[in-house]
């Protein structure tokens, strides 16, 4: 399924999820899940987890799973996995929820990660965390892309509707084998001699009727033994079940966007377009706005005029560690004197720690503190 701004809703998601699960287990071999039990060390554990997982992800680079396409916008499974990992870092509430789930399990059965089969339990919890996160990220990006409201629940509902269509299309395709189910979906008797006209007319999700989705869900238990998503005991889609107009609007929206996006390059390609352009627009919009009485200039704020330098109080290795984390080892704007002559890139974290004569964990802590300060100063 494709919608404006979404990146994690296509078939490649399965591979992204598996890769993140695999690399998370590798990371937890370094950072014991036991550290999550103490709320005061959770944030440090997150930082270490991100570091180790991104290392494992980069090591998986060139594996066929990591290189395979993760969506139809040209992003690989690896890129999507890294993107989601960095989102996690920006959303500590999701990490807290994961930690609470680990804590909960620990209270029931002890240090399960050290027990036989413990990896599977841990992996299941990691999967759950990323499943929630991908819908948060995609519903945010949907709103950014098209300016309409969305929520993680709505994203989940879009996917349910899309899956329903896929199943209906499959049943329609094999109408000869499933005349009773086709009849139940259409809400009328089906003559086994000729293909029902609806079956021939439904060419895409845009041509699927909301009543069929409701009928499909309602009759699913009868034909497959498992209740359809609109008809389970869960209240999740309770309001949707009685709102064919809402389901119809979602079917049309998915269909319209798939048609549009299959005809042109996607908007994500614009991301590389000059950062300065929109920052100039932002500065102008803020400048022209009525002054906000709640805002006073924050010390250390990155002034657009360049009058105040960011991280003025931090050592050069800490500042470079911040650039390394935020912009990567290679960037055309890095001055030559910052680069390691051997690689032409910023020094590694190990090298920076040695330059600063501190341990790696200390450098990480100082770097993360500098980033937190910078982030805190970003209320424009």
């Amino acid at each position, binding site marked *: 399924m494709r919608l404006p701004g979404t990146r994690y809703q296509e078939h490649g998601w399965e591979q992204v999820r598996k890769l993140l699960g695999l690399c998370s287990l590798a990371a937890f071999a370094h950072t014991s899940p036991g550290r999550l039990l103490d709320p005061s060390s959770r944030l440090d554990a997150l930082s270490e987890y991100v570091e180790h997982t991104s290392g494992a992800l980069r090591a998986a680079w060139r594996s066929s799973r990591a290189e395979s396409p993760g969506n139809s916008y040209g992003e690989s499974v690896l890129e999507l996995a890294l993107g989601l990992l960095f989102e996690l870092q920006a959303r500590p509430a999701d990490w807290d929820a994961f930690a609470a789930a680990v804590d909960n399990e620990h209270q029931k059965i002890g240090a399960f990660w050290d027990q036989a089969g413990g990896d599977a339990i841990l992996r299941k919890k990691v999967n759950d965390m990323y499943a929630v996160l991908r819908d948060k990220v995609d519903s945010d990006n949907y709103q950014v892309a098209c300016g309409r409201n969305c929520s993680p629940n709505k994203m989940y509902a879009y996917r349910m509707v899309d899956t329903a269509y896929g199943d209906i299309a499959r049943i329609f395709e094999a109408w000869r084998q499933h005349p009773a189910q086709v009849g139940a979906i259409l809400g009328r008797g089906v003559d086994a001699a000729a293909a029902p006209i609806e079956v021939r007319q439904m060419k895409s999700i845009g041509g699927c009727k909301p009543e069929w989705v409701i009928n499909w869900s309602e009759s699913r238990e009868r034909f497959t033994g498992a209740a359809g998503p609109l008809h389970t005991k869960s209240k999740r889609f309770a309001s949707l079940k009685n709102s064919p107009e809402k389901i119809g609007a979602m079917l049309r929206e998915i269909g319209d966007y798939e048609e549009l996006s299959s005809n042109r390059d996607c908007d994500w390609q*614009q991301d590389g377009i000059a950062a300065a352009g929109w920052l100039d*627009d932002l500065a102008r919009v803020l400048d*022209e706005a009525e002054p906000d009485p709640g*805002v006073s200039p924050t010390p250390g704020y990155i002034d657009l005029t360049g009058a105040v330098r960011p991280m003025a109080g931090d050592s050069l290795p800490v500042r470079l560690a911040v650039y390394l984390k935020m912009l990567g080892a290679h960037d055309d704007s890095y001055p030559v004197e910052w680069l390691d002559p051997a690689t032409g890139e910023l020094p590694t974290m190990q090298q920076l720690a040695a330059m600063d004569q501190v341990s790696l964990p200390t450098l990480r802590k100082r770097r993360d503190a500098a980033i937190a300060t910078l982030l805190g100063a*970003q209320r424009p």
Partner: protein
Amino acid sequence: MKENDLKTLDDKLREKLLLSRRVEGDRLMLADAVLNAALDGSRPLSAGERAALADSPLTLRRLRQLSIDRAAAANTWSGSAGMLRAASSGGIDALATDDQHWALHFVPQGAGWQVILKLAADAPFAPQLMREQPMLRVTDGGGAIVLQGRLDADGECETAWPFDTPPAQHFQQSGARFAVEPVRA
């Protein structure tokens, strides 16, 4: 270190920081109409709207998207027009649009002509058109279609001259003007 590089680096870091802020439960706090009016300067944000923008990274990212959309729209080609310059007594070999981004070439072929539309390689929108390959149409001053098709890998599109009268005479009789436009779906 050059001052310019530092400014670029600061911008890049600031953009990254602005875009990586997340607020739990964030949502769009300002309508597109409000953000667009602020971007085009027709209605500045009120103090309350400014605060809403500052407190909502998601709304800020929406502002960024609208800013990028506006820049992209400003660079998008929507058509070029040209004139038959001097009333030449004989035939014409070629015509160019006023912006010099397109040329029409006429090559005798048998009893008639081939007409070739050529995109200038240095046109600002050339990379976009070559990538997107939109359907293009050339019309004369009376609106009749001279040529319709998509550019080939050389940035050209050609067809047989569709009229009985020769090119120069035809354009003279139909307003001495022509236009190259994308065909809207």
